[in-house]
């Protein structure tokens, strides 16, 4: 199984044994309540220099309130998993929180080239599915997984992937390096206080992200009882023992949607996208992050009861969302 070619991109260290040792020492197996505020969760579990992943994005069932908290706490030198995303990476880089991004798809605009030229951020090239495959490798506790895509791209050269000879078919095959983020932020529909959680509808890689990460902060629309969790175990995709913090965050994906719960707020989305295309997030960050103390305050002062009722009302589809 010879290595034929290797990307020259720096990649987050592959260390399955280190992950196991971390789990053994640090992850509580017992069912203990992990309910806490977003401030406490981010203070405790997001550290400067961390590799940070989030599931979905700022507009689609993403941990938007947690992202704003990360920015509010002015975390530094984050390395971010930038797949399937519109504005989240731009926000994190422009706010000075992130200086490395692995790209699947990120919302573009003048900010990227500027960040590169000014040396504020490095970008490494993958694709959406290759990034979720890296998380899957991380979630399986193995150092790599094979795939039959990406080998024929320019991105390969700027990635951590390798092209090897498959010992079974003697053909070239791509390997992707496992990704085990230091911390991940995941927004879910329902969780109990221990972190047993449910996501309804389609998803990007919530289970992979939760299993692969050393520390996991969940925000959840609803806190449900463990009794309810046990009533329908087939609905549960995240087990409590991988979770470190559970933040009760109704409308936590705002301005985005949570399938079956509420629609997106087009105004809020246009506001964020507009900032990105202008290449200037200062006003956006000031208004939505720095001048606000918490997600609850954001809902109260910026969004308002009327709009919250409106996004709920506009989400007319309930079928399949367990409600």
């Amino acid at each position, binding site marked *: 199984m010879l290595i034929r070619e290797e990307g020259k991109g720096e990649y987050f260290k592959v260390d399955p044994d280190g992950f196991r040792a971390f789990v053994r020492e640090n992850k509580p197996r017992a069912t203990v309540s992990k309910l806490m505020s977003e401030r406490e969760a981010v203070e405790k579990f997001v550290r400067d220099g961390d590799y940070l992943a989030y599931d979905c994005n700022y507009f689609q069932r993403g941990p938007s309130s947690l992202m704003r908290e990360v920015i509010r706490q002015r975390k530094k030198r984050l390395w971010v998993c930038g797949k399937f995303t519109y504005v989240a990476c731009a926000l994190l880089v422009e706010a000075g929180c992130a200086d490395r991004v692995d790209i699947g798809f990120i919302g*573009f605009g003048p900010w990227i080239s500027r960040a590169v030229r000014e040396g504020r951020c490095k970008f490494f090239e993958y694709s959406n599915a290759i990034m979720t495959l890296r998380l899957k490798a991380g979630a399986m506790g193995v150092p790599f997984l094979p795939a039959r*895509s990406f080998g024929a791209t320019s*991105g390969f050269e700027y990635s951590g992937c390798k092209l090897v000879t498959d010992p079974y078919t003697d053909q070239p095959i791509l390997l992707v390096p496992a990704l085990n983020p230091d911390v991940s932020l995941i927004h879910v529909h329902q969780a109990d206080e221990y972190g047993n959680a449910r996501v309804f509808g389609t998803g990007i890689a919530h289970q*992979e992200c939760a299993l692969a990460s050393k520390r996991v902060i969940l925000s959840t629309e609803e806190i449900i009882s463990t009794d309810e969790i046990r009533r329908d175990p087939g609905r549960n995709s995240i087990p409590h023992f991988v979770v470190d913090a559970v933040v009760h965050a109704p409308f936590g994906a705002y301005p985005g949607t949570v399938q079956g719960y509420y*629609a997106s707020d087009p105004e809020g989305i246009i506001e964020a996208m507009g900032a990105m295309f202008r290449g200037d997030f200062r006003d956006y960050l000031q208004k939505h992050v720095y001048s606000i103390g918490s997600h609850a305050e954001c809902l109260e002062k910026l969004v308002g009861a009327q709009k919250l009722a409106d996004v709920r009302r506009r989400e007319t589809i309930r079928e399949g969302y367990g409600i």
Partner: protein
Amino acid sequence: MSTPAVNFSEREFVIVQVSRLLEAKCIYWVGGGGEPLASVLLAKRTRVPELQYLTEDGVVAPEALVPFDPLMTMVASRANYRALQWGTMNYAADIAHLGYVDYGILNTLQVDRYGNINSTVVGKYEGGEGRRFGGPGGADSIAALAWRTILITDQHKRKFVEKVDFISSPGFVDGPGARQKRGLAAGGGPWRVYSPWAMFGYGQDCQLMLQAVAPYVTVDQVLDEMSFKPKMAKKIAPLEPPTEEELLILRTQIDVGGQVTDRGRWIELKDGKYRFAE
């Protein structure tokens, strides 16, 4: 029931062209939004209601409720309504690895002679000097794993280039056999490129070949808006204009706000001929 339209945009034209290709007996993997998804939704509402497609978030064969809120083409309840299955991104990739995706439908920034796709950078990659875009997203997997890809782009010199500045998603790379040498599966690759002015295919040599043009442009106009000279089919066919029925559905049901279609120039039928509106 099939009245040639008298007035339509370039985007509407290309969406209609692609929608007419689509068949009930195939499975499509559709890039996130824009013209590809509009083509699929139009086909479902005109000729093939049973059409099945996937998107990156692992939705299998939904019966989407259009129109969508801005950007809400995935992980959103109207887009994923009444699917046969709700999966995840890795699940969509598995299905495609297995050969179940007949066609991928994509749009792009740049395409080259060998059908390679650039959605990463125009200009030099290193040093941040080029103009940077968002990356391949799901397109790399689609371009690598679907049996055939249908690409949509605009007809501009800067979009049809001899060699893309960066291969974000693979076409035939640099010729026959190149995909497999880089780890991709046997078979597969580019099949059609549609612009609002023309339709291209590929020959045995894996090179782009002009096959048809829109009724409002000439072959020379198309070639003028390319940075290289493509191969030419023996006979260049005309592309049929949209019908009023197709446009009505597209405008009133699918792209109500005009987010997708309301760009590019407008075409009108005047004195029995299609031409750009003034």
